[in-house]
């Protein structure tokens, strides 16, 4: 489902010096896997996620996700890839404040080529039911708790029925109990066949994954199965 070969990513620091966060990294994630990538802050976990999800194009190497080779794709083709093949869940939820929960979930539909209508609205409601927020679909993000906001963000990521879910510290801003609820949602989605790749430095999150990889000096090291 996800293949990365010889992945390198270089940053230029504020003082002008080059920092190599990914250094010839190789990764293979099979369909329906739940993989956690751990590592200290600044080790390049989010960078790896952005590269794999087609958000960051300034890398060297080969990336294939859901059969799509990302290298050389135009901006429009990459946008289509992000819309149709993958979903993102972020630590800070990144919901649009003036949209309701259902409208936030429908956001990908605006970029799918059609005009969002009743069908998309029903799909958003269906997804919100799936993450347990069916009754709060018309609430604004400010009227939702942190856990509820993250559920909306998960709903948004699931809207276009992606094959892969990329999660960037999805429980980082949540208390233990709420975080566990979110982890349970990911588990459920994974059991339904969704490939989940999450970066985290939280043990309970990595414990939920079937495989844990540690990002160390720009390369991934297998830590073994958690489940």
């Amino acid at each position: 489902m996800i293949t990365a070969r010889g992945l390198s990513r270089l940053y230029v620091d504020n003082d002008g010096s080059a920092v190599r966060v990914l250094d010839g990294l190789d990764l293979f994630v099979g369909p329906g896997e739940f993989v956690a990538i751990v590592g200290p802050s600044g080790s390049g976990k989010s960078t790896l996620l952005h590269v794999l999800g087609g958000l960051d194009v300034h890398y060297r190497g080969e990336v294939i996700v859901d059969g799509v080779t990302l290298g050389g794709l135009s901006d429009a083709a990459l946008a289509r890839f992000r819309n149709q093949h993958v979903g993102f869940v972020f630590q800070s939820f990144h919901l649009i404040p003036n949209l309701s929960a259902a409208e936030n979930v429908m956001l990908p539909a605006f970029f799918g080529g059609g005009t969002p209508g009743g069908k998309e609205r029903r799909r958003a409601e269906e997804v919100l039911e799936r993450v347990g927020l069916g009754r709060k679909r018309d609430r604004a993000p400010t009227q939702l708790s942190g856990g509820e906001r993250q559920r909306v963000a998960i709903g948004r990521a699931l809207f276009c029925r992606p094959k892969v879910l990329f999660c960037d510290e999805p429980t980082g801003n949540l208390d233990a109990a709420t975080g566990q609820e979110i982890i349970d949602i990911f588990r459920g989605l994974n059991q339904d066949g969704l490939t989940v790749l999450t970066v985290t430095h939280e043990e309970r999150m990595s414990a939920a994954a079937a495989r844990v990889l540690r990002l160390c000096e720009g390369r991934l090291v297998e830590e073994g199965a958690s489940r």
Partner: protein
Amino acid sequence: MSPGALSRLVRLSLSRDRRGALFSAFGVSVGVGALVFFVALGLGISKVVREKVFPVDAALVDVVPPQISLGSILGGGQLDQATVDRLLHLDGVTEVYRKMNVRVPAVSRYDGDFFGSRIRMGLEILAVGVDPGLVKKDVELGDFADPGAGRPIPAVVSSRLLELYNKSFAPARRLPQLSPQMVAGFEFPVVFNSSFVAQSAPGPAVPAKAQIVGVSDRGLLAGITIPLAVAMRINAATGQDAQTFTGVTLRLSDPSKVPKVVAQVKEMGFEIDDTERRMSETAGAAVALTTSALALLSVLICLLAAVNIAHALSAQVRARAKEIGVMRAVGASRADIRRIILGEAGAVGLLGGLAGTVAAVALSLALDHLAGRYLPPFPFKPETFFSFPPWLWLGGVALGVLAALLGAFFPSRRAAAMDPARTLAG
């Protein structure tokens, strides 16, 4: 992204900061409103100058004999029937209207009822005879032809003369206002070859009656326009030249042929009487110059509005960096982001352009109303000082949109160039 999706996203975005959007739209509306107002004023005044003060028909050319001429020695200078026939055969000329001044002075002594008022006055009168075709569309009573000696001479008066009478002469002397329909049929005595101030010609005085049969833009401003045959008859009766014409008006098939015909006429040794045309053009140029200066000022206001929009959108783009990042993450391309920002600006510009144009129309209606009510009547005072052709409406709205899009150009590029990975990670 489909247009429907774009329009929904733009609506949702604008509803978030209604105040800011309205403020930006207000800036645009001030510029557009000022521009539409001044252009409409310029067009309105030009229309009055063109249609009322100096009514010039672009397809007509007035030919007159040269002021200094060697005359028949060189075979030029006289506007006789042979010359008229030659003029008629020039390429582009469809009709020729001859004109002959009554070459003796004339007076009118009137003592009687004048539309409900009693007046007694004496006037020196100029008279010119013209071919009927020149004024036939304005004749409302009978035929414009020589009725024969002893019968009232049909006379056409100038519409500008009637305007001057109604707005200056009549109010000063408490005389009634007259319409073209009212004056049709009015008779007054005229004595040709008679004058209060000049010496008359050796021939006999010719007493007659004139009857106004119409009001025309082509009528003589300070006198009466009568059938050519009558002028020829009076000139012959008073021993004056009744063979050569004082002027000839050529009607062309197309105004674009004027320069060529003018050149040919000059080659024939004649001159063009373009006094009215030049006065009209001078007045028009003065109006256009003033309008252009005010329009330029308005365009500057629009540019300031564009700068304001650029400033507001730049700030918004910075504030919405994460939102833009999320849109990129869920499938927006750079072009989509650019379209969203430009769409928002376009909507603000559309609103501002519409509001400005409507405000300009409303202000012009209010000013017309106030002018009608409080300005004293003066010659050529129009019912409206403004003209709003459809292109001005469309232009006003388009300018609003253009100014807003101009302001949004760089912010939209900046938004599209944002690195989503960086904004979402930060």
